[in-house]
């Protein structure tokens, strides 16, 4: 019998768990965010510096199709209107190929860019101190980069299956927006 779209969408519910403590601590708040040039699922090169002038949320996640990642990105997709209210761009980054990203984003209806840290494998994750050498994928790490390219929020999940509190993320974006409003007056 042919597999259904729903079965594929729900694969993560029965997929092997992704757990384990964090190995890396990530970059600290206040550091300049390293630039990167990574392909999206359409093989277009996306650079962090393309977004200078607006806040960017960088979502390093271990792997497409895996349990926590599927739900984490679904959460951000659901909240895209809120990210837009803050004028923030959101970029997902993992070591998966652009073809995997293409299939996964279509199936799970993800409309923000998923970037492929595929070759040299994990270079962007390494630059952000989020590379798990023994596993061959990144930590679950979240960064907010302000419009000048400085890291204003950094969070590496203490366990791979832990997803940071989205309210904390929105609080940082609200603060950046408030600062900008004040500086514009």
């Amino acid at each position, binding site marked *: 019998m042919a597999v259904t779209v729903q079965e594929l969408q729900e694969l993560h519910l029965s997929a092997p768990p992704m757990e384990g403590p964090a190995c890396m601590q990530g970059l600290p708040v206040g550091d300049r965010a390293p630039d990167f040039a990574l392909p999206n699922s359409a093989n277009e090169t996306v650079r962090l510096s393309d977004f200078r002038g607006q806040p960017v949320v960088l979502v390093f996640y271990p792997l497409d199709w895996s349990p926590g990642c599927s739900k984490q990105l679904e*959460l951000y997709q659901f909240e895209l209107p809120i990210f837009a209210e803050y004028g923030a761009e959101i970029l997902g980054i993992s070591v998966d190929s652009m073809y995997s990203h293409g299939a996964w984003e279509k199936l799970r209806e993800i409309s923000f860019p998923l970037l492929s840290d595929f070759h040299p494998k994990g270079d962007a994750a390494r630059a952000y101190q989020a590379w798990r050498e023994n596993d061959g994928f990144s930590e679950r790490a979240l960064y907010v980069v302000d419009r000048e390219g400085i890291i204003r929020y950094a969070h590496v999940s203490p366990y791979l299956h*832990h*997803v*940071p509190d989205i309210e904390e993320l929105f609080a940082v974006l609200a603060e950046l927006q408030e600062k900008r409003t004040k500086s514009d007056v």
Partner: protein
Amino acid sequence: MSDLPGPHQTAEPVVVLYGTSWCAGTQLIRRYLRRIEAAFTEKDIETTPGAEEELRALNNGTANHPAVLIDSQLYAEPPLEKLKELLG
């Protein structure tokens, strides 16, 4: 006077969300329930005494979460579409 809804009233469903603070699915459902302004109770199965046992009792012994109890029916790891269908 009866607490039962009258002929022109609709009873609000009793909604309980079982989850954990670190779970993306729990956050997603919580945000959804707030967005539709649904009245609900949240029980963190790691920090609310008895909540995990309560969930296991409702869910054939497993603590898979998030899980949503709507009136007396439990939905374990429900897709958002299912909740939209049930709660609007």
